[in-house]
């Protein structure tokens, strides 16, 4: 015996590991086994990936409402590969739901839950519910507006449950509103309670699959059984690889948004649950008034009960999948119902106000700058300065890097340079900028603010905010008001306007200030509807 063999035998005698792996891999499976049975393995793989990425996220995440948001922004903007980790976890969650449902659909279509495999099915249904519970609890953890308001709706639905409602709410820590306690409970469920429960359920599920064997189809009795390894293991691997490739591409290419920090006073926000809960959300709308509980609690409970009871209702002998037309019809009807409700929910979703669409998953330094600097970004874009200049990073262009400290100069120098470039910089190939003195001053203000660290963040300022700031400048709002500490304090400072007023109020106030603030010395402003939208959105996106 070679040394390697000796070592293996020694180890197996002590631990039984090789025998166990062998027994596992060389399990008999029916002759009909094939590609349709890979979905459960993919779901298991996705769960393990979620556990891995989740643990990594937890390494840089502070699970309390105030810090949760900041630490997530830190993960996204500062930690290397942080955005990828969150992408994997976010899209992995959705893919896991899809995969669990597909797995269940396959088992349902084939009737693989029939005697003696009822318990396997029941455990599987519980695993589906657990997967959904991850989705529900994880949704709150970014603590942005989306997370907060989605959870407010979810806990209020739970509160409607007959008899259990108030207890459920207390268990979830929602004493009337979603706060620190709810957050702690959701986090505890998401990372402490659900994962071991899932592992246990998966262990039971797999144990039952092994105990009863993979469900055979009629005709399998006559054929010799196959081994799981390597052919079926190969199929599982290929399916897992494809799923992982899709997940990885999504995580790299599809940006997961982060909205502004949760604001419980926000009256304009339209709460929406995650896509896989939209159908439930829509079901609610079909029932009004005292009947609401039917949509929120009775129907979902009945649906879960029906799922659990499937193997006890359909108790006939095994038949070929092609003969199970009733099962196929149920699947088609369920898919149509689910798809219809989801589409209806998407179609009826009102658009979020512009300010709610700002992506906070990247640095938002532009929120901190003064209106004149912000308006400068507008002229910077209008004059297409980046056609000839690099800003901070990127391939060198014909003009100098505008974020470089070395080219920084006084505003006066800059304005003269803009008017006659070659006068200030002999030999400059830059064409004169055709703007008024005030506009050039605005542009200079932005360039003075620019440096290598904030260049990217400032340039990512959304158009509505830049245009809003331009209107702010043109209307000379700054001669009475202040934004981010810059301006005059004759009128009220405009930061935090969102917390004080509604958009409608601000619009009405622009048109006729005295009607809403008697004694105000503010003149009326006649903005076009487009201008009105932008200036209000700009004012409402400002930090408090």
């Amino acid at each position: 015996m070679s040394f390697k063999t000796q070592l293996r035998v020694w180890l197996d005698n002590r631990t039984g590991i090789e025998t166990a792996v062998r027994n596992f891999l060389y399990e008999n499976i029916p002759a009909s086994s094939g590609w349709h049975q890979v979905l459960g393995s993919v779901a298991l793989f996705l769960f393990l990936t979620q556990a891995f990425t989740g643990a990594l996220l937890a390494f840089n995440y502070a699970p309390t409402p105030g810090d949760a948001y900041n630490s997530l922004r830190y993960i996204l903007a500062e930690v290397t590969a942080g955005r990828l980790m969150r992408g994997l976890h976010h899209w992995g969650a959705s893919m896991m739901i899809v995969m669990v449902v597909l797995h269940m659909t396959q088992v349902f279509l084939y009737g693989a839950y029939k005697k003696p495999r009822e318990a396997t099915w029941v455990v599987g249904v519980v695993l589906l519910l657990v997967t959904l519970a991850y989705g529900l609890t994880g949704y709150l953890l970014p603590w942005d507006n989306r997370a907060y308001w989605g959870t407010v709706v979810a806990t209020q639905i739970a509160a409607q449950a007959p008899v259990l409602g108030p207890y459920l709410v207390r268990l979830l820590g929602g004493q009337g509103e979603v706060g620190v306690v709810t957050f702690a409970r959701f986090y505890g469920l998401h990372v402490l309670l659900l994962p071991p429960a899932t592992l246990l359920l998966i262990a039971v599920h797999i144990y039952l699959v092994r105990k009863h064997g993979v469900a055979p189809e009629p005709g399998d009795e006559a054929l010799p059984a196959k081994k799981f390894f390597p052919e079926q293991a190969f199929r599982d691997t290929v399916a897992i690889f494809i799923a992982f490739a899709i997940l990885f591409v999504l995580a790299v290419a599809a940006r997961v948004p982060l909205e502004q920090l949760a604001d419980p006073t926000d009256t304009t926000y339209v709460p929406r649950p995650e896509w896989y809960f939209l159908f439930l959300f829509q079901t609610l709308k079909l029932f009004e008034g005292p009947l609401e509980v039917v949509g929120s609690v009775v129907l979902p409970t009945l649906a879960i009960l029906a799922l659990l009871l499937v193997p006890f209702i359909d108790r006939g002998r095994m038949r070929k999948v092609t003969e199970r037309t009733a099962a196929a019809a149920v699947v088609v009807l369920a898919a149509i119902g689910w798809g219809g409700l989801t589409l209806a929910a998407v179609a009826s979703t009102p658009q979020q106000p512009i300010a709610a669409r700002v992506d906070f998953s990247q640095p938002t330094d532009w929120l901190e700058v003064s209106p004149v600097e912000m308006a400068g970004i507008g002229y910077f874009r209008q004059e297409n300065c980046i056609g000839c200049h690099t800003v901070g990073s990127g391939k060198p262009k014909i003009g100098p890097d505008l974020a470089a400290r070395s080219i920084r100069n006084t505003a006066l120098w800059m304005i003269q340079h803009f008017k006659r470039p070659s006068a200030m910089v002999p030999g400059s190939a830059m064409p004169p900028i055709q703007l008024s003195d005030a506009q050039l001053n605005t542009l200079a203000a932005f360039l003075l603010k620019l440096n290598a660290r904030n260049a990217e963040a400032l340039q990512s300022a959304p158009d509505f905010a830049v245009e809003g700031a331009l209107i702010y400048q043109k209307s000379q709002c700054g001669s009475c008001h202040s934004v981010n500490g810059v301006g005059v304090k004759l009128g009220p400072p405009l930061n935090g306007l969102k917390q004080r007023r509604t958009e409608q109020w601000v619009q009405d106030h622009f048109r006729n200030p005295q009607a809403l603030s008697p004694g105000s010395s503010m003149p009326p402003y006649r903005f076009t509807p487009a201008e009105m939208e932008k200036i209000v959105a700009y004012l409402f996106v400002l930090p408090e």
Partner: protein
Amino acid sequence: MGRIRRAPDDSPDSRRGFFLTVIYGAWSLIGAALATPALLYLFLPPKVRTEAEWIDAGDITKLQPKVPVEVVFRKNRVDGWKITSEKQTAWVVELPGQKIVAFGPQCTHLGCAYHWEDAKSEFLCPCHNSVFSVDGAVVSGPAPRPLDRYQTKIENGKLLVGALDEPGPKS
């Protein structure tokens, strides 16, 4: 068209070999695609977003040569996702040649706070008796390296203190 040649690898052995290749290959790729970002995530330092600041640490015109003074100032410290404003101290001393130096307040041995012994004209760390001279050099004791220094500059008679220059984990 041409005859379709029967693939020579249809034997059970080569089928098995193909399956094994795909299984090992695919799992290696998945493992690498998860492990690489995980290692980057854990081991690469995060981007630093705040600009290095210069903090006013007070007037230096009253400094006497070779008499260190303990100066207290507030500094913003970036700690992960938090920026905290905290008290920091420096031992500021004017060395020969009118060179102003600001030492970090911790002994380079194990990080205890040291102090200036006026009588002996040296810095003494009470923990393990490390002794430093007025220019920060190790005189005796277990300290492995001279006192760490803050970056400094002087503007209008005021001392501005920047980052503390600490040698890396291995100096």
